[in-house]
């Protein structure tokens, strides 16, 4: 039995509703059948009573005068042949004398004259017993295990009881009629079922499908964050719909949480890298400054051999490169704060123009900004140059790069920069390590551009993100506007 309750709703709902429909039809049908049977019986009794009264009155004089033949003609008159078999057709009419002997019957072969009730079988014994005790007329008797229904009336003449008139009805005649009714009801019932069951299966499956979907997704939730449900799966506002909405909210919250965790891991890693690099850079910077000073001093001596001089210059260039690299790693945001103005943007446009032309890039420039914005001009310039150069180099030869700069949705407190290029899309692996130093995606790149940009943005308490969208790679920077103290890269 338990397996029945373990079935999927997809089966259980249609099964249960089908069962309920069938059960209801059966119960209603059975009630109607019972009623029909009772109605038929009462119709028989009413018809029998009418006939009985007429016959009892007519037959009374023949009993008084012992006129058997007249009585026989009277009791035989309502009997018809085999052809007229209706439930209200009387099967036999019997006149019993006062002593319950048969005076005359319409069927002398089975109910002969002068026969005692005992000789006629148990039906007549029961009837005889009831006749003696009866006070209410007509007496209707349906003996147990009998195929007949009996109705009895007294035959009287001026209050003197002369005998009894008994009408016998064959149930075998009204059974076929009743069975006809049952068949008819059965066909109608089957027809209704044939219409209702498919509708019910369709409705039940439809009802169960979202539930089944939901159960599957919930089951998978521990392993991975599932997709939200398709919005057209169950577009209604009942409890089920509310459940699905709650599920969707849960899924979205889980996805946000996962993204946040991802982001945190990334920023923590970047922060650790920043600390490490800053530490190393400081450790290098101190001896490096001494070394450079020594080399400069040595170069000032006039009696140096040309070969020594060449070596010194070699050392000088090497040390300068080390200083530049370390300087690049040590992002300095502590600069004088000048607000960003339109000239800065024009400068940047001019600066990248040669490379754009060289690679035949189509550049969309959309910078909607007032004359001045309360943002640190040099840092924003560096961010823009880094991102744009990066985009121009990433784009295919003759490709497309776009810049959008402005305040998103009219925001007063944030400046948004969106740079897109149509170069190769970034892989998940690349996206995960994009802002780490020396993580160049490009042959020949030193991989510090995005690192520096990231450092600047985070130090300005802004946000930077990258994603693939519409077959393009998009970088979005969001910077808070307003006067605020800028910290250095070093903690």
């Amino acid at each position, binding site marked *: 039995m338990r397996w029945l309750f373990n079935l999927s709703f997809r089966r259980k709902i249609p099964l249960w509703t089908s069962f309920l429909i069938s059960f209801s039809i059966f119960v209603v049908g059975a009630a109607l059948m019972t009623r029909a049977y009772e109605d038929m019986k009462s119709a028989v009794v009413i018809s029998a009573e009418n006939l009985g009264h007429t016959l009892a009155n007519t037959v009374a004089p023949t009993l008084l005068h012992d006129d*058997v*033949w007249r009585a*026989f003609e009277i009791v*035989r008159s309502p009997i018809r042949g085999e052809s007229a078999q209706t439930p209200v057709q009387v099967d036999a009419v019997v006149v019993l004398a006062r002593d319950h002997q048969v005076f005359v019957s319409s069927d002398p072969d089975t109910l*002969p*004259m002068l026969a005692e009730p005992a000789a006629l079988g148990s039906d007549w014994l029961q009837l005889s017993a009831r006749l003696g005790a009866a006070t209410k007329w007509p007496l209707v008797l349906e003996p147990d295990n009998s195929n007949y229904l009996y109705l009895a009336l007294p035959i009287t003449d001026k209050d003197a009881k002369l005998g009894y008139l008994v009408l016998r009805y064959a149930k075998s005649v009204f059974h076929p009629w009743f069975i006809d009714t049952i068949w008819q009801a059965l066909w109608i019932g089957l027809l209704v079922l044939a219409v209702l069951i498919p509708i019910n299966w369709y409705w039940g499956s439809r009802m169960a499908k979202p539930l089944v979907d939901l159960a599957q997704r919930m089951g998978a939730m521990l392993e991975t964050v599932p997709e939200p449900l398709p919005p057209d799966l169950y577009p209604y506002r009942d409890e089920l719909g509310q459940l699905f909405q709650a599920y969707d909210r849960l899924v979205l919250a889980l996805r946000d949480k996962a993204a946040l965790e991802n982001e945190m891991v990334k920023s923590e890693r970047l922060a650790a890298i920043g600390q490490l690099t800053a530490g190393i850079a400081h450790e290098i910077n101190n001896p490096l400054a001494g070394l450079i000073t020594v080399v400069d001093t040595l170069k000032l001596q006039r009696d140096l051999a040309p070969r020594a001089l060449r070596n010194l210059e070699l050392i000088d260039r090497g040390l300068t490169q080390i200083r530049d690299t370390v300087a690049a790693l040590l992002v300095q945001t502590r600069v004088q704060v000048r607000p960003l103005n339109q000239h800065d943007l024009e400068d940047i446009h001019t600066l990248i123009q040669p490379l754009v032309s060289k690679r035949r890039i189509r550049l969309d420039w959309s910078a909607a900004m007032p004359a001045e914005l309360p943002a640190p001009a040099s840092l924003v310039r560096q961010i823009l140059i880094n991102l744009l150069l990066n985009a121009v180099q990433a784009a295919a030869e003759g490709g497309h790069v776009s810049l959008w700069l402005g305040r998103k949705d009219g925001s007063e407190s944030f400046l948004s920069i969106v740079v897109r290029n149509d170069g190769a899309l970034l892989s998940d692996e690349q996206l995960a390590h994009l802002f780490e130093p020396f993580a160049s995606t490009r042959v020949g790149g030193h991989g510090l551009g995005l690192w520096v940009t990231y450092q600047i943005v985070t130090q300005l308490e802004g946000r930077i993100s990258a994603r693939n969208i519409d077959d393009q790679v998009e970088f979005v920077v969001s910077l808070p506007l307003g006067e605020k103290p800028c910290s250095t890269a070093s903690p």
Partner: protein
Amino acid sequence: MTQSIPNLLPNRNRRRWLINSVCLTAAGLIGLTHKARATGNKLRVGMTPAFLHNEYSLLDEWREFMAASLQRPVEFIQRDSYRETMDLLRLEKLDFAWICDYPYLHLKQEVRLLAVPLYQERPYYRSYLIVRKDNTQFKSMADLSGSVFAYADPYSNTGYLAPRYHIRNLGHDPATFFRKTFFTWSHRKVVEAVASGLAQGGAVDSYIRDTLVHVEPELALRTRVVWRSPEYGFPPFVSHRSVSIADYQQMQKHLLDMSASEKGRSLLARLNLDGFTLGSPQLYDGVASMMRVFGEA
């Protein structure tokens, strides 16, 4: 069925009956006392269940034929039992009647023998004892002792007197021989009572039972004849003694001549008779002797 004759007769008969009733009343008013004369020259003929008296169209044709032959109006008066017809004769409400031999002997003082029908060329018939065909245990009257028995009419010879005489000859008392007896008031209905099983045995007129075998074989052949009585004189046509000699002779001539005309022969054929003969009261001596045995004559 026989109670409703006036309703089943053609309308003109009912009209005529009405007119006659009015005439009768008028005649009574002007003081005509002789009942037989009260209807003017119309002849009133009583018909009894001595033959298949439910053949209404046959009776109607016979009456028209008789009226045309006698050239005077004729009225057929039917009653269900012999007794009623006998009463009408006694009360002189009938001029002529076709009655059974037994009533004839009862009414011998009031009626005269007119003519006797010829059945199978002879003026005789018998009583049959019939039982149901499928009931093979009854082979004679003795086997029917203690059974239910159907008589035709208390004034019928073949349907009452003859079987009782036979029982008496067998050494039994006819009053106690059967468990129960009843009258059907018609020979045809005796056949019906036996065929339906209401009675185990019945006494019936041989002429009627044999005619039924032709007319209603499905009914008649459900019965079987187990005993045949000696021959008795056929139920005669009689006239009341008050009928004038002229009328008596006219009617007698009509009956005797019936087989001479085509129409008469066709009517006789339908009655399953061959004609009429004068007959004589001696024909009925056998019945008279049976009556004497029962102390009735």
